[in-house]
C-alpha cells in the first residue's frame, strides 16, 4: 500500500506538469464582445462619428483601499469622493448613457489581501478596465499583474517602484512620485534658502529624512533622489525611522537629526506621521530650528486631527500637485464642493482624499470617453484606456485641479505647486505656483 502511495504521487506529479502546461489562460484579456453593443456595432464601427448610445451598459471601476490599517485616516473620504463623483456622473447621463459603478475592496493595507481582491475582481469581470489603488505596497505588488492583464491602475501610492519596476507599465499616478516630490521641494528650498531657513541655520541645507519604516515611508529615498540632492549640494545627514502609530515618540529621531546638524526635516508620512514630528518639535522647544517638509499627503486636514495645537502645523511645506478646497475660483473645486455639500459629508472628510477621488473619477471618465471615441465601445479594453491616457497628455483634470502628463514614457505627472501652512486649518498657501518637478524615475 505504501508503495502504491508513492507510485500514485509520482504519477500525479507528472500529470501536474502536463496540466500546468495546458492550463487555461487567466480568463482572456481580449474583451468578449459585449452582447448589447454587438448588434449596433457595425453601423458605428468604421469611423465613430456621432456619440454612441450606451444606455443600459455598465462600466465598473474597481477600488482598493485600507479602511482598517494605518492609512484608514484618508481612505474613508477617498471612497466617499469616488462614490459621490460616480453618482453625479450617472445622474448627468453617465458615459454616453453607460452607467458607471465603483466596487470597493478593503485590503487592510496588506499586499496578500490586495492580490486576493484582484483575483476576485478579474474573475468577476474578464474585461476590467480601470482599478484605483491606494497603498504603495499594494500598488507595487499588483503592478506586474496590471501590465500582464492590461488593466489601467490609477494609484495614489506614489512610490516609484510601482510605476517603473520591471514589467509594470499600466500604473498611472495621481501625483508625482515621492522622489520627484522630495526633489521639487528641496530644489525650491535651496533656491529660496535665505527666505525660509531657520534663523540660526547655516548656508547649506542639511536634510534629515525622518519617516516610517514602511514602503510608503521610505518611498522618497531612491538612488535617483539621492543623486539629485547631491547635485543640489544638499547632504542627507540623518535617516531615522519611527513607529507607524499615533503614539510614536519621535524625540530620539529629532534629537539625532539635530545632533547631526540637520536644519530641514523631510517626512514621507501622513496624518499622525507628520503630526508626531510637529508635536514633538514643539514639545521639545525645537520648532524654530527646522524647516519641516513632507510629501503631498502630509499637508492635509488629517494631520490636524493629531496636532496638539492647530498652530503647530504652521510652517509645514509640501509639494501640492492639485488645487485645494480654498481655491474657490476654480470650477472643478466648486464642483467637488457641490458634491460634498449635496451628499452631506462630515467636515472631517473635507480633505485631500475626497477632492482627489472626485478628480480621479473625472480623469477616468475622460480616459474612458476618449478610448470609446477612438476604438469604439465594443473594442474598449484596458489597453485602449492606457493608450487614451497617453494620447490625451498633457491634459487637465477637473478643470485644472490636477495637471496630468503621461507623455514620454512617464506615468506620473511632473507638475506641482509648493505650498506652506500659514495660519489655521486650510490655510495652505502657495509659495510657488505650478512648476515642473524634476524627473527622478528609476533608470532601467
Amino acid at each position, binding site marked *: *500500500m505504501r508503495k502504491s502511495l508513492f507510485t500514485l504521487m509520482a504519477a500525479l506529479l507528472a500529470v501536474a506538469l502536463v496540466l500546468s502546461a495546458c492550463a487555461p489562460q487567466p480568463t482572456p484579456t481580449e474583451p468578449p464582445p459585449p452582447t448589447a453593443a454587438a448588434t449596433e456595432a457595425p453601423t458605428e464601427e468604421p469611423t465613430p462619428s456621432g456619440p454612441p448610445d450606451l444606455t443600459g451598459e455598465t462600466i465598473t471601476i474597481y477600488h482598493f483601499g485600507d479602511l482598517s490599517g494605518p492609512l484608514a485616516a484618508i*481612505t474613508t473620504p477617498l471612497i466617499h469622493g469616488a462614490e459621490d463623483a460616480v453618482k453625479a456622473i450617472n445622474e448627468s447621463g453617465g458615459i454616453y448613457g453607460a452607467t458607471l459603478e465603483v466596487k470597493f475592496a478593503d485590503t487592510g493595507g496588506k499586499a496578500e489581501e490586495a492580490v486576493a481582491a484582484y483575483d476576485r475582481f478579474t474573475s468577476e469581470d474578464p474585461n476590467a478596465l480601470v482599478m484605483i489603488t491606494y497603498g504603495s*505596497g499594494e500598488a507595487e505588488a499588483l503592478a*506586474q499583474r496590471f501590465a500582464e492583464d492590461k488593466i489601467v491602475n490609477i494609484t495614489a501610492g506614489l512610490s516609484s517602484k510601482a510605476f517603473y519596476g520591471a514589467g509594470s507599465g499600466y500604473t498611472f499616478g495621481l501625483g508625482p512620485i515621492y522622489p520627484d516630490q522630495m526633489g521639487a521641494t528641496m530644489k525650491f528650498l535651496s533656491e529660496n534658502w535665505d527666505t525660509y531657513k531657520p534663523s540660526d541655520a547655516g548656508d547649506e541645507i542639511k536634510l534629515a529624512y525622518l519617516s516610517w519604516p514602511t514602503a510608503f*515611508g521610505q518611498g522618497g529615498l531612491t538612488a535617483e533622489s539621492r543623486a539629485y540632492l547631491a547635485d543640489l549640494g544638499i547632504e542627507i545627514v540623518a535617516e531615522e525611522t519611527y513607529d507607524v502609530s499615533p503614539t510614536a515618540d519621535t524625540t530620539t529621531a529629532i534629537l539625532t537629526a539635530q545632533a547631526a546638524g540637520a536644519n530641514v526635516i523631510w517626512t514621507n508620512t501622513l496624518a499622525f506621521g507628520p503630526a508626531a514630528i510637529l508635536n514633538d518639535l514643539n514639545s521639545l522647544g525645537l520648532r524654530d530650528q527646522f524647516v519641516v517638509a513632507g510629501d503631498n499627503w502630509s499637508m492635509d486636514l488629517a494631520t490636524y486631527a493629531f496636532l496638539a495645537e492647530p498652530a503647530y502645523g504652521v510652517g509645514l511645506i509640501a509639494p501640492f500637485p492639485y488645487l485645494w478646497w480654498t481655491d474657490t475660483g476654480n470650477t472643478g473645486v466648486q464642483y467637488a464642493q457641490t458634491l460634498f455639500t449635496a451628499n452631506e459629508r462630515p467636515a472631517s472628510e473635507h480633505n485631500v482624499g475626497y477632492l482627489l477621488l472626485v478628480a480621479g473619477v473625472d480623469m477616468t471618465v475622460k480616459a474612458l470617453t476618449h478610448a470609446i471615441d477612438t476604438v469604439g465601445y465594443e473594442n474598449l479594453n484596458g489597453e485602449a484606456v492606457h493608450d487614451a491616457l497617453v494620447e490625451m497628455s498633457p491634459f487637465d483634470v477637473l478643470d485644472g485641479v490636477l495637471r496630468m502628463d503621461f507623455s514620454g514614457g512617464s506615468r506620473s505627472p511632473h507638475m506641482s505647486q509648493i505650498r506652506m501652512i500659514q495660519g489655521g486649518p486650510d490655510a495652505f498657501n502657495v509659495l510657488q505656483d505650478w512648476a515642473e518637478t524634476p524627473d527622478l524615475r528609476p533608470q532601467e
Partner: protein
Amino acid sequence: MGVPRPAGEFDTTYAYDMATIRRNWQWWLLIAFIVSLYALPFYASQSIVSLVNRIAITVIAIQGLNLLTGYTGQISLGQAAFMTTGGYISALLVNLAGWHFLAALPAAALGAGIVGLLFGLPSLRVKGFYLTMSTLAAQFIIPWFTRNIFPDILNGAQGVNVRVPFMFGIEFNSPQKYIYLSLTALVLTTIAAHNISRSRLGRAFIAIRDHDLAAELLGMNLFKYKLQAFFLAAVYAGIAGALAAHNIRHLNSETFNLNNSVMYLGMLVIGGLGSNLGPFFGAFVVEMLIEFATLFGPFFITLFPATAAGAVQALKPLFFGVTLMLFLIFEPRGLAHRWQLLKTAWRLRPFSH
C-alpha cells in the same frame, strides 16, 4: 490508529496494519478528490482557483506548525517570521542569482529551517509559555533584519518584487497555473508530514507533548527532539513562505506578520491539533469564514455607524476570534476529532457504540 473499526475486521498482515488507507474505495475517493483539485482551473472561476491556491499554501504553513505545536506541544507565534525568511531566500535566489525556482525552494526551506532552529535554542532552558515568547521574539527580530541588513539588496522596508517562477517553458503568472505548484507542494508536504508523524520521530514528539519529564526519564534527548520539531516547522514555513511570495510577487517585512502567526495557530486548533487532517479542516473553515465576511460584510457593516461601509476587515478578526473561542470551549480537539466521530459512527452503523 485508535479508530474503532467494525467487528470482524482484523489486520491480517503488517502491511495492512500499517496502511493509512485500508479500503479500495477510499483510495479511489482520495484520487478523485486530488484529481478534482488539479482539474480545478478547467471548471472553476478564477477567484475560486485563487482561493484554493491560497488555502493550499496556508495548509503547508499550518502542517509545519502542527508538527511543532500539535505533535510536540510547543506553542509557536513565529511561523510567519519563518515564512518571511523562506520568502526572502527564494526571492533573492531567483531574482538576483537567477536560480531555478525548483532549486530555490529547497534552499528556502533549508534556510528557514536553520533560522527556526536558532529560535528554538531557548527550548534548552525554558518551555511552555516562555518558549512562546521566544518565538514571538522571532516575529519581531526577523522582519527587522529584512528591513535593516543589506539595504541595497533587500531594499529595506520597501521590500522586493518577486519574480514569477519560470519552468519548463511555462510562466506561472496566474492562479490557474500557480495552483499546480501549490497543490504539488502540498501533496508532497502532506506525505512527508504523514510519514513523520507515524515514525519514531513523530512518536518522540508526542511523548514530549504528553509528558516531557517522563520522556526525559525514559532516556530521550528532549532538546534534540524539540530542536528537530522547530527545524521541521520552519522548513514547512519556508516552503509556504516561498510559495506565497512568488504568488504575491512582492515581499516586505510586513507581508507575513504576527497576525498571520496567530491565524495559523487558530486554524490549527479549529482544525484539530495533532491530526494530519487538522490543517486542512482549519485552513478551509477559516478561509471560508473570511470569504463569507468579504461577501456579506458590506451589508452587515452598514448596521454600525462608526464603521465605514466596506470595512470588511473588521469582520475577519471578529469571526475568526469568536470561532476560535467557541471551538476552545466546546470542541478543543477540533474538527478533525468531529470527523473521526462521524467516520466511526458511519463504520459502526447501525450501532452507535
